[in-house]
């Protein structure tokens, strides 16, 4: 148990360090590379929670897909990799309040225990369970999300087309 706790603290520190580099980095490409390490740290934390399907999907979608598209967009934007990004802007106080509020909420949730957050169910294999749940109990939200993504994609194409 102590070893698992040690691994958790190591992974948490690693993920937080990567996240800090993402937010505070002056070079936007370095931030994107740090984001990859952050996502990998999150995936490792999922593995620690016995959610290995979620971990693999996290790496496949976020690292293999979204971050690569992000880097792609950065490299296609001329000179953006050379200019230094502004880390802090005028809304620093507002965002600090929001962040502290979220932190307080999370601490409250993890100490007093919101019912949905307490006690992860132990499953021998998560993938079949997730698949069945998505296509039976949660079929409607699943389809709604699909339609939302489709609408977003169509919108992006309409915006990007010149004619």
């Amino acid at each position, binding site marked *: 148990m102590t070893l698992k706790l040690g691994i958790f603290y190591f992974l948490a520190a690693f993920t937080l360090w990567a996240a800090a580099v993402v937010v505070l980095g002056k070079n936007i490409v370095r931030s994107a590379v740090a984001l990859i390490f952050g996502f990998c740290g999150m995936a490792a934390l999922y593995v620690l929670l016995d959610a290995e*399907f979620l971990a693999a999907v996290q790496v496949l979608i976020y690292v293999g897909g979204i971050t690569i598209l992000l880097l792609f967009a950065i*490299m296609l934007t001329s000179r953006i990799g050379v200019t230094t990004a502004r880390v802090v802007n005028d809304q620093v106080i507002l965002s600090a309040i929001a962040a502290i509020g979220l932190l307080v909420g999370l601490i409250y949730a993890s100490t007093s225990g919101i019912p949905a957050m307490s006690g992860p169910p132990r499953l*021998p294999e998560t993938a079949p369970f997730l698949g069945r749940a998505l296509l039976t109990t949660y079929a409607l939200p699943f389809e709604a999300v699909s339609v939302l993504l489709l609408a977003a994609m169509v919108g992006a194409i309409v915006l990007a087309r010149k004619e």
Partner: protein
Amino acid sequence: MTFASLVERFYAALAAWGIPWIVPTLIVMVIVVSVVLAYISVAAMFMIWWERKISAHIQVRYGPMRVGGWHGWAQSIADGIKLLLKEDLIPTGADKVVFVLAPMVVFGATVAAYVTIPWAPGLIVRDLNIGILYMVSISSLVVVGIIMAGWSSNNKYATLGALRSAAQAVSYEVPLVLSLLGPVMIAGTMSMGKLVEAQSGRWFGVLPGWFVFPQIVAFLTYFTCALAECNRLPFDIPEAESELVAGFHVEYSGMRFAMFFLAEYANMFVVSAIATTLFLGGWHGPWIPLPGLPRDVAHGLFGLVWFQVKCYFLIFVMMWLRWTLARLRVDQLMGFAWKVLLPIAFANLIVTGLVLILGKHALLYVGGIAILLLVAILLAARPAARTVRVGERT
């Protein structure tokens, strides 16, 4: 007595002496990683020599003939030593941290995929529940390393190569994952070991129970996408020598270049191993009990050999294609992934799901043939490209 039981016995022996469990675990981990790394190095050096010989014979040459005597077998070893001794160069304008990190990311992601390769019955580093998904997702990290290398080199050719690689990888990953779902749906599991075991029967009592027969469409789609994932011809635009010098690794030399090279060949083995496991029946093949050996050890040895034979056959096909086909253009490459491979993969997925629900395995063949026919009709019915003459109004 399998590999797993050997490890269990080792654990039990050390536990009997009162040594904490972390010590034998670490020892086993180090041994397994060393074996895998040694295998990767030797296999990659063999594949490099093999590719040079194959390319030479396709082009009516001899290839390396001198180093080591018989057909230049030691050429890769000599090249490896040369690369090790070369000066370590980092360009002045390069982002040093990212530049140094990039080959490690590429090599690490490739090696990590070896965890779930089922070499023989019971011989697998860790048979994860999500085996095939893990392999696909960890392999997708290779592109990240390629982009890091291309950007950090501060070189226009390298950045162009990385951009092309990113576009190609993201496009081809979609049909790749979709085509792998066919065998997963039939077997009802994602674990690599169970996927191989699911192919032990026979189709119609004659053909071996490999998934390549009902899933021929998925196999062809997967193999095409795998070629693209490995940046092999005809999908090698990320490192096209004649346009981009060498693409993303143009600024790398010495040991760092060797890491990229090693990872490229190790990755070829990984995609072949996935194809062998999911479509070609993994370690299954005819075997006979060897005299003087227990039955399961003999079975394991034959399985090991069969797995290697199937993998290296696929690698041979990849090399054969590389030295036979011409390079695709960027727009053709993208159009092929999104307009041809993706619809085929989706059609295969739908037909497989339908047949599985209807509950007749034999119908899979009908479905596969129907898809092939449909594709052939679509390709034949496609209007021919109009040629536009200079000055003509379109």
